[in-house]
């Protein structure tokens, strides 16, 4: 009897695809293996810790019912990330009307949505490691955070991000560049980085 925990994703997928109805053992191992990553992604794509758990569960349900379409051309993680990104972006769009704008345009520099909050304000001591990453991400405005997360957490291509967000390729590259700059500066200093000071 093979321990399912010892199998890699590809072998687990094969078993899950060949499992009878109601047999979720192989799929369950995949859920346990990737749930932390999916949950973190959902949280930072939507900006909501409260909604993230529900969204992450829905992502795995979608993955389960799409198992028959997975052909193994990409890694399971890549496929999972794509389903998750689509699900979360659809959720963000349905939650409220989203209008993507040019973050470099001078007329947009005063917008509240582009303001970067100081991440260390009020904190007694500076958090380390992932706690710090979470604080920094939460402080980055959505218009920069979503493409940054899609690129650097999900490793989506620029083209895919552009299509998913329905914006131009150059806008995607610019936002990711600015998102990274903002992330690094906040991560390194813990200080406030107003968007208008970028460039």
């Amino acid at each position, binding site marked *: 009897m093979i321990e399912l925990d010892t199998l890699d994703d590809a072998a687990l997928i094969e078993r899950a695809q060949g499992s009878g109805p109601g047999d979720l053992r192989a799929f369950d191992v995949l859920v346990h293996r990737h749930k932390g990553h999916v*949950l973190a992604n959902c949280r930072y794509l939507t900006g909501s810790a409260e909604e993230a758990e529900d969204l992450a569960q829905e992502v795995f349900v979608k993955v389960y019912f799409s198992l028959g379409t997975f052909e193994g051309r990409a890694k399971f993680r*890549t496929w999972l990330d794509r389903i998750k990104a*689509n699900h979360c972006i659809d959720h963000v769009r349905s939650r409220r009307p989203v209008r993507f704008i040019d973050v470099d345009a001078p007329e947009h520099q005063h917008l509240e949505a582009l303001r970067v909050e100081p991440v260390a304000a009020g904190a007694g001591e500076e958090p380390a490691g992932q706690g710090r990453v979470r604080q920094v991400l939460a402080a980055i405005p959505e218009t920069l955070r979503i493409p940054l997360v899609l690129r*650097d957490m999900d490793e989506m291509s620029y083209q895919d991000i552009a299509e998913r967000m329905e914006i131009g390729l150059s806008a995607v590259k610019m936002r990711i*560049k600015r998102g990274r700059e903002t992330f690094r500066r906040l991560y390194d200093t813990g200080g406030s980085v107003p968007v208008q000071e970028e460039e």
Partner: protein
Amino acid sequence: MTEGTGRPDARDDGPEGPAAPLRDLEDEPSADFAERVQNRIHRREAAAHVTDLSSGGFLLVLVEFIGMIAGLFGGPNKTEGGSH
């Protein structure tokens, strides 16, 4: 859902590269996360099963109805043919 093949434009990241700390970021889900996923899957499978049954039942009724209509129009001909 298309699968894609990975990172075709990874070299476009430039000299600065990605924000590395993001790569391995994970959150701790609730203790019953996997159980709740399973429950959702079971519920959806059950709902699909019920839908199949209902649509199957509807199809059966439809076939019977069509058969009945066909019988109404086809029946007298047979009777006429039989009586002459």
